[in-house]
């Protein structure tokens, strides 16, 4: 079944057992929604110097958006900001590939579990679900940095 390419086991696992879910202390909080389907996420970023100390989140949404937030937490917490940005960009690129990018080893090295979302990129309506938490993270991080500057 073609659907299996979207709903990989990795994704369903993250969906059923999300990592790092729940709201904890953070430097900035954002609330993002996907107006087309109503998926919502509240996400906080905690920085420790240039390191991501925590990404905590809560929200409602489909398996794709929930799993994607869980994978994000796995991938980004503990990373240096510059490195995290690269991960985010690569994930964005993969999601916008319309199923045309076949993740190779180099990509898997960076994206780890997130390569499982390659199949989702074939479904335009779902790409937004997969990107919801990543856009929220980008936004929250920008806010956290901006606040630090004005502080």
């Amino acid at each position, binding site marked *: 079944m*073609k*659907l299996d390419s979207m709903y990989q086991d990795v994704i369903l696992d993250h969906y059923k057992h999300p990592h790092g879910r729940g709201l904890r202390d953070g430097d900035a909080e954002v609330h993002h929604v996907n107006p087309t*389907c*109503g*998926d919502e996420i509240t996400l906080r970023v905690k920085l420790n110097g240039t390191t991501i100390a925590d990404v905590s989140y809560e929200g409602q*949404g489909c*398996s*794709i958006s929930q799993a994607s937030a869980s994978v994000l937490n796995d991938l980004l917490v503990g990373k240096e900001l510059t490195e995290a940005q690269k991960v985010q960009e690569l994930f964005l690129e993969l999601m916008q590939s319309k199923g045309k990018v076949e993740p190779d080893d180099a990509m898997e090295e960076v994206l780890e579990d997130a390569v499982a979302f390659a199949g989702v990129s074939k479904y335009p309506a*779902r790409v937004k679900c997969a990107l919801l938490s990543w856009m929220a993270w980008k936004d929250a991080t920008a806010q956290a940095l901006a606040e630090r500057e004005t502080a």
Partner: protein
Amino acid sequence: MTQLPGLLDTEAIRKDFPILDRLVHDGKKLVYLDNAATSQKPRQVLDVLSDYYERYNSNVHRGVHVLAEEATAAYESARDKVAEFINAPSRNEVIFTKNASESLNLVANMLGFADEPYRVERGTEVVITEMEHHSNIVPWQLLSQRTGAKLKWFGLTDEGRLDLSNIDEVITEQTKVVSFVLVSNILGTVNPVEAIVRRAQEVGALVVVDASQAAPHMPLDVQALQADFVAFTGHKMCGPTGIGVLWGRQELLEDLPPFLGGGEMIETVSMHSSTYAPAPHKFEAGTPPIAQAIGLGAAVDYLSSIGMENIAAHEHAITAYALERLSAVPDLRIVGPVTAEDRGAAISFTLGDIHPHDVGQVLDELGIAVRVGHHCARPVCLRYGIPATTRASFYLYSTPAEVDALVEGLEHVRNFFG
């Protein structure tokens, strides 16, 4: 095959709709259950569109040449057809817009710019309900922000019906306008027009009825409704996209100011000032959706040839059957009335913890097209504490076999995420 009383001859009807033969996802038969979002179009409508563009496409109202006369006659005859379809006292009460949303915005804006006694302004109130489509919420929010009027609304009962218990507090002497949906696109509820109209008339408020989900599915009689304005949209009733209708009472249309300005809606223009044509033209600025109006005329011809009573009976039978079968699916919860009484053919539900997006995706893979999300009625989801629903909605070509396919599909969904 399941035999239900009141069903139409769907075998014959489906032949009129070319898209229903479409195969999707490597050869699966399309099961189109997204009719509340938009309906499919019969050959009879598509032929009229082609004929217009291939034989007599022209701008209307201003030409003396043959094409202009033919196009004008066809456009205005579409107005006659729509007027008859909704039993309007006068053809001049039928305004063509681009969709129901424009129709509703048109009313809201007219009332904001109107003189007394219609004027919505600070100190006055606008009443809607919690089950409105966003297109009947946001225009009134904008109006109240811009004028300072107060926006109020009726809440919902746990059964998915309007809670009118406090009607005398909601609709008061300050109320200028009450706007509500005749048939909810998310809950399926058919609302009790009479009670609301009676109270509105008591306090002298205008009544606007959003009939977007009614006009396609049941006989619509604007005189019987006793409303002042009725809005609906062509694409949900076998017509083309790009066409909507606002019906309004003649004297109101005469008294109220225009909304959009431009060609077609004027009587005479100088640089210093302009006067306006009588309704309906006063409200139709610019080149109208000519082909689309003519297409809508063909659509109401088509629907009338089958009979709106018959279509309503068909959908009632299908809806009752679907409610019965769906209620047997484990973990399925219907959001909205659970019986087919006073109920349209849109059925929203949740399926355990499985998010509607995932439900819809798996059904799609099986060729079954349903809608998922908040259906442009987010307050209803908030009210019932759910993020979204899956919605199956039926029309005159829907069959019991399609209901069966849906129910089987939902079993598959449960297994997939089980």
